[in-house]
């Protein structure tokens, strides 16, 4: 009985996370967690000189396979996007990226990395008060 949510790609990203670590020269970083599951994600983002285009993203943290695989995939996907494009991403984009159906109770795990990146970018642009983030520090 194969578990649909755990296709090879997800497990591969979970076991061999891409872009894992922290950046010394991040333009901004942000941490968020889902306290009830214990998923924690930190996203470090470095921007190009235009202060707009994402050059490199590293992530770190721990938690379930869905949250960690999602962060791993997202860290690659974000490179080359602008902050505006990052802000446009929604849960459907995350589900498409993961390439599997995510059961309703697990959506929070799947979108954590995206939310952390978006909140981090908003705080960087001073559009968001740090106290108002949905992802807590």
């Amino acid at each position: 009985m194969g578990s649909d949510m755990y296709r090879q790609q997800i497990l591969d990203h979970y076991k061999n996370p891409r872009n894992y670590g922290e950046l010394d020269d991040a333009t901004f970083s942000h941490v968020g967690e889902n306290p009830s599951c214990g998923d924690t994600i930190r996203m470090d983002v470095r921007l190009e000189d235009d202060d707009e285009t994402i050059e490199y993203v590293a992530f770190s943290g721990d938690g379930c396979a869905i949250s960690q695989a999602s962060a791993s995939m997202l860290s690659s996907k974000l490179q080359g996007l602008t902050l505006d494009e990052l802000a446009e991403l929604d849960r459907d984009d995350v589900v498409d990226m993961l390439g599997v159906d995510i059961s309703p109770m697990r959506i929070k795990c799947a979108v954590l990395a995206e939310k952390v990146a978006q909140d981090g970018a908003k705080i960087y642009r001073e559009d968001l008060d740090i106290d108002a983030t949905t992802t807590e520090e």
Partner: protein
Amino acid sequence: METQESYPLDVESIRADFPVLERKVGGDPTVAGEGDGDDVPLVYLDNAATSQTPKRVVEAIVDYYYEYNANVHRGIHHLSQEASVAYEEAHDRVADFVGASGGREEVVFTNNTTEAENLVARSWGLNELGPEDSIVLTEMEHHASLVTWQQVGKKTGAEVRYIRTEEDGTLDMDHAADLIDETTEMVSVVHVSNTLGTVNPVAELADLAHEQDAYIFVDAAQSVPNRSVDVEAMDADFLAFSGHKMCGPTGIGALYGKRAILEELEPFNYGGGHVRKVTYEDATWEDLPWKFEAGTPNISGGIALAEAVDYLEDIGMDRIQRHEELLTEYAYDRLSEFDDIEIYGPPGDQRGGLVSFNLDGVHSHDLSSILSDQGIAIRAGDHCTQPLHDKLGIPASTRASFYLYNTREEVDALVEGVDEARELFA
């Protein structure tokens, strides 16, 4: 199965009382999130979260709505009389079930355990406590009690203290004796831990509380469903439980309180139905327990809770307890065979009917999803004991919890399911 005869319940006939146990799960592969469409039998091992409901209890609800739906304590008309008598008698039946000799006057129906905690916290705690007082809890309290008393502490200035949990999941009773002192006004303890399965020595804790003239509140959400609980033998001042964990419906629970204490307390909610005389200036309260049940109560829920109590008593609480213990011990032993499984709490033969564990390298949410695809329902997460999980140094755990309709075969299915997850993540 060689040891099957020592199981005291006729599980096959019990399972026939629960239609949901016959269903298959797995879902439609064309619908997002519904898995790969394998139709597998439901293995329901999430009873500590909520239990399933036997036909008899559902029928009691249907009967009420089809035959005598009316408001209680108010109408003189026929239906209201029938409803009132059934609802009031339900209090007596529930009182009797937990050994409250005061009958209905000592049993208040609430939404659930959480509301019972809040009733005492607000009616008594907020009115009586101050900065010179202390409230003693355990480190293994459910949030229902922990958060409630923590907030009472913040509002009144009373100090909140936690009795230490030992390595083996039992309470450090020397620490309890130290913490419960002359400043202590309330000791609120969980009877059976919903995370560790520990069965706490509540009678001993009641003695410690009473030596200091403090009250003891017993959170019996995980004990009343599966063992004979006698509020007078343990000398509880308050004791609370939820219908939905004991074959009853959601939205109904009970608070036991000693009559002499309840008589002194302020109402919890204000409104209609619990007042005797009202003027523009003031109001006086109805007799117990109605003083605490302002507004139209959950009438069908109360009647159904009494039906659930009758159902459990017909089967026999001692036999239900023994059945659960045997299953739990079996599950504990089977899961203990694996080096990569860590189980929390006391040994298999000294615990309530649940086993919380972690499989090394697999987050409990992933494990839960994989088990779910095999029809197995278990609980993943912090089980509303976040501070305890912090203390254990784990973000979450996986909990299998058993009830009267579970079988050894279902435990075997769990172990196989865990095996599958292990392989997938290897």
